[in-house]
């Protein structure tokens, strides 16, 4: 198992916020595959082109897994003071085929878009930035990978795991 973890966000890059997600994701991968080689790249600024290029760079070495962290919501499109969320748009641009789930609040704003796809031998996913949601999404993804699940099932399981982190999320997704 070789994996790349790509944190995104100016606040992570500048050290304003500690990157707690990447170590947690790395811990989970190593727990699942003790012989794993996991690379955490330098955090990426919130620009679609920068994120896209980093995905391409990581994919060049044909890893088993690429995980992007953060930037999965509507962000700046609803609040000018929030960060710019471009991770999902960069992923959609990169992947030829993918499965995606978008979770909206009842006010019509997108809270999170999770994208899961495969290109060559590499599974490419994103997880939300909030720690509990990132942790849950990753657990669901790894469980799916270990059981041999396909992209569609992994995508669905990740969305279910994130949905359950909202107070309303006790009910299962259809």
């Amino acid at each position, binding site marked *: 198992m070789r994996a790349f973890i790509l944190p995104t966000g100016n606040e992570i890059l500048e050290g304003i916020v500690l990157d707690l997600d990447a170590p947690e994701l790395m811990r989970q991968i190593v727990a699942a595959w003790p012989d794993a080689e996991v690379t955490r790249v330098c955090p990426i600024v919130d620009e679609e082109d920068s994120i896209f290029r980093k995905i391409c760079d990581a994919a060049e070495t044909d890893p088993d897994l690429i995980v992007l962290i953060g930037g999965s919501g509507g962000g700046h499109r609803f609040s000018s003071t929030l960060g710019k969320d471009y991770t999902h748009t960069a992923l959609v641009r990169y992947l030829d085929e993918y499965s995606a789930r978008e979770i909206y609040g009842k006010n019509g704003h997108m809270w999170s878009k999770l994208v899961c796809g495969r290109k060559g031998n590499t599974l490419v996913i994103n997880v939300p930035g909030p720690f509990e949601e990132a942790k849950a999404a990753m657990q669901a993804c790894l469980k799916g990978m270990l059981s041999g699940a396909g992209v569609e099932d992994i995508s669905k399981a990740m969305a279910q795991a994130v949905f359950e982190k909202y107070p*309303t999320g006790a009910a299962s997704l259809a």
Partner: protein
Amino acid sequence: MAEEYIIAYADKSVLKISGLSVKGMSTTQVEKVLQDKLQTIVRVIGVTGESIEMDVYNADPEKIRRNADGVIDALALAEGITVSDLTKVSCSDKIVPVEWKDIPDKPVSDCLRERWIKRG
């Protein structure tokens, strides 16, 4: 492959604390401190060097506004955060379900599908 759209019917407000100095903040610690204070689920959704924005679920916004000093005192205990006399708390009203008549029939931003759009 599938593209699914899911609606989360959760009550939330956005709590913003500005006039801070933030460096090396732990989001999990801040969430825990404020969850203990407000007795509800809190998620950090945006941070700059001067402010923190959070989703607060199932809370009374007016109660939070009245307890602003207590919120700031609690936050001051978290690592990586320095409060000052300029620190202030603002809390939006709870989100409300969008009405059909208010749903736009074309994208309102440069990114499609990040807000409901009428179809057909």
